[in-house]
C-alpha cells in the first residue's frame, strides 16, 4: 500500500481496506512463469519461430533445469510463501531473506541479501517497497549472484537499482532477468529490448480475470459494509471468508468510534 498516505488517513479517520494477500497466487505464478521463461528462453524462442519458420532452438548458456537449483526469495510474506511452495514442487532448494527469520519455515534463512545471493542461482524479489528496501538489489548483490544468476522481480521496480541491473545484463555480470515491475513505469530501459535473456512484463502480476472479479466483489462488499450495515458490525460478518483473505487496515475514526478488525 505504498501509494496511500496511511498517516494522513489515520489523522483524518479515513478507513482503509486492503485486499492483502488476495492475488498472492497470481503473482507467484507470474514469478515462476518469468523464471522458467528466462531459463528456457520461451519468449525468445517463440519470437524466433515466428520470424524464421525452420528455426533451431536458441543455445542455452546455462543449464535451465529447475530441479536442484538454489532459489533465494527476498521477502517471505504471502507472495514469497506461495513462490516457495511452487519452487518446492520443482525440487528447487529454497532459501530466503526477510527482515526477521520466520519460525516454522523449512527454508534456510540469510540475514542479508548479499549472503543470500552468494549462495543461490536465482533470486525472486517479492518484498514490499519501503525506505529500507529501496534498491535492496544493488550492484553488490548482483555480482554476488554471478554470471549465471537470474533475477525475477514481481515486487516493485525500485527494489532493484535499475541502472545497475542494465549494466550488469549488458556486461554479462548476471545471466538473465524476468521483470514485471520497473522504476519508472511504464518506461522501460531501451537497452533491455535487444536482449534475449530478459523477459519483460507490464506490471501484470495480479491481473487475471479471476482475481479482478474477486477484487471487485471485495470492494463492493466493503463499501456495503461501511455504508449500509451497522458500522459497529465487523466487516468480517459481511464478507464471505471462503473467497478471500483480506487484510483490513481499518483505522480508528478520530471521533472515537470503534475500529473494526
Amino acid at each position, binding site marked *: 500500500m505504498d501509494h496511500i498516505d496511511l498517516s494522513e488517513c489515520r489523522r483524518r479517520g479515513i478507513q482503509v481496506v486492503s485486499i492483502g494477500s488476495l492475488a498472492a497466487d497470481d503473482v507467484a505464478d507470474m514469478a515462476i512463469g518469468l523464471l522458467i521463461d528466462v531459463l528456457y528462453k520461451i519468449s525468445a524462442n517463440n519470437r524466433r519461430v515466428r520470424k524464421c519458420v525452420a528455426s533451431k532452438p536458441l543455445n542455452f548458456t546455462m543449464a535451465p533445469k529447475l530441479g536442484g537449483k538454489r532459489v533465494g526469495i527476498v521477502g517471505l510474506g504471502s507472495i514469497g510463501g506461495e513462490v516457495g511452495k511452487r519452487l518446492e514442487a520443482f525440487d528447487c532448494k529454497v532459501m530466503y531473506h526477510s527482515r526477521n527469520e520466520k519460525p516454522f519455515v523449512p527454508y534456510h534463512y540469510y540475514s542479508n541479501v548479499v549472503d543470500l545471493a552468494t549462495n543461490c542461482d536465482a533470486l525472486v524479489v517479492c518484498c514490499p517497497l519501503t525506505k529500507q528496501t529501496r534498491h535492496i538489489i544493488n550492484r553488490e548483490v548482483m555480482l554476488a549472484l554471478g554470471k549465471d544468476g537470474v533475477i525475477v522481480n514481481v515486487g516493485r521496480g525500485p527494489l532493484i537499482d535499475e541502472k545497475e541491473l542494465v549494466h550488469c545484463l549488458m556486461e554479462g555480470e548476471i545471466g538473465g532477468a524476468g521483470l514485471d515491475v520497473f522504476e519508472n513505469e511504464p518506461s522501460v530501459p531501451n537497452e533491455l529490448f535487444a536482449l534475449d535473456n530478459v*523477459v519483460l512484463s507490464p506490471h501484470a502480476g495480479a491481473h487475471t480475470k479471476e482475481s479482478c472479479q474477486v477484487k471487485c466483489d471485495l470492494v463492493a462488499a466493503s463499501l456495503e459494509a461501511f455504508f449500509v450495515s451497522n458500522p459497529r458490525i465487523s466487516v468480517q460478518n459481511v464478507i464471505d471468508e471462503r473467497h478471500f483473505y483480506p487484510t483490513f487496515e481499518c483505522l480508528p475514526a478520530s471521533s472515537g468510534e470503534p475500529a473494526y478488525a
Partner: protein
Amino acid sequence: MGSIGVLLVGRVFPYLEQELDKRYKLFRLWDYPQKAQLLSQHAASIRAVVGHAGAGADADLIDELPKLEIVSSFSVGVDMIDLEKCKAKGIRVTNTPDVLTDEVADLAIGLTLALLRRICECDRYVRSGKWKKGDYKLTTKFSGKTVGIVGLGRIGQAIAKRAEGFNCSICYYSRTEKRDSNYKYYPSVVELASNCDILVVACPLTEETHHIINREVINALGPKGFLINIGRGKHVDEAELVSALQEGRLGGAGLDVFEDEPAVPEELFGLENVVLLPHVGSATLETRTDMADLVLGNLEAHFLGKPLLTPLV
C-alpha cells in the same frame, strides 16, 4: 572396437558424433547420396544403428543390414524404430529415458504459464512501446485450475507433481488405469478434455496415439480450454488444431512439437493465444550430454557382453 561398424542415420549432438567416430567405424547416412551405395559397400560391417527422434530404423533398413545387433536411439521416443521387427530378429533397442523427464516437465508448466498469463505477448507488448498507451488486458489464472494429462508415465507424473504445487487438480487418461495413483482417471481422452481446463499431451507416439488429439477432443476442450503438447507433433491433428484456433473453438495452445518439424503452420504466427517453440524439450547441453552418454554406454555394454543400461527390446 574401432572396427565395429555403426550407422548414424541422422545428425545428432556433435559430442555424440565425435565420440562415435573415435570409438567405432562410423558411417553417416547423409554422406551417401544413394542409400544403396552405402549398403552395397558397408552393410556387412554395420552392427549398430544410432538414430534420434526423427530418424530410426524401419523394417526396410533392418532387412538391409544383416549384421545389425542393436539400435540405440538418441531420444526417449522410439516411434521411428520398427520395434516388432527388432523383437522378431533379436535386435536390441535402447533409448534415453529419465535424463530429460525434469526438463520436459518444467517446460510443460512454463508453456502453460506463458500461454495462460500471456507472458510472451506481454513481453512483446512492452518491447513494442504499447505499455505507454495502456495496460495489457487481463489474462487467465493458472493456480487452482484442473490439469488433464494424457499419459501418466514418468513425464506425466513429473508434470502432475509440479502442477500440484500450484493447487491444481490433476486428472488423466492412460491405456489402463493406474491403481496406485490418487488422480482421477478418465477412460477416454474426450471425457478427460471435457473435464479439464488444460490438457497436456505426455504419452509415447504409437499407432494408437497418432492424432489422439482430434477434432472431437479439441471441441470437448473448448473455447476456454488450453492444449499443451510436449509429446510428438503427430499426437495432434494439426490441421484441425489450426482451424479450431482460427475459429475460436479452442482457448489456446502451447506447442513444442509439430507434425512436420521444423515446419510450423504459418497460420499460427498471428495468433496471440499460442506459444510456439522449436522442439526445445531436450535441448539443453546438460541433458543432451547425458543422453549421448546413455547411447555410448548402451553400445559399449552391448559389445562387451554386459547388461544394457536402458533397454527397450
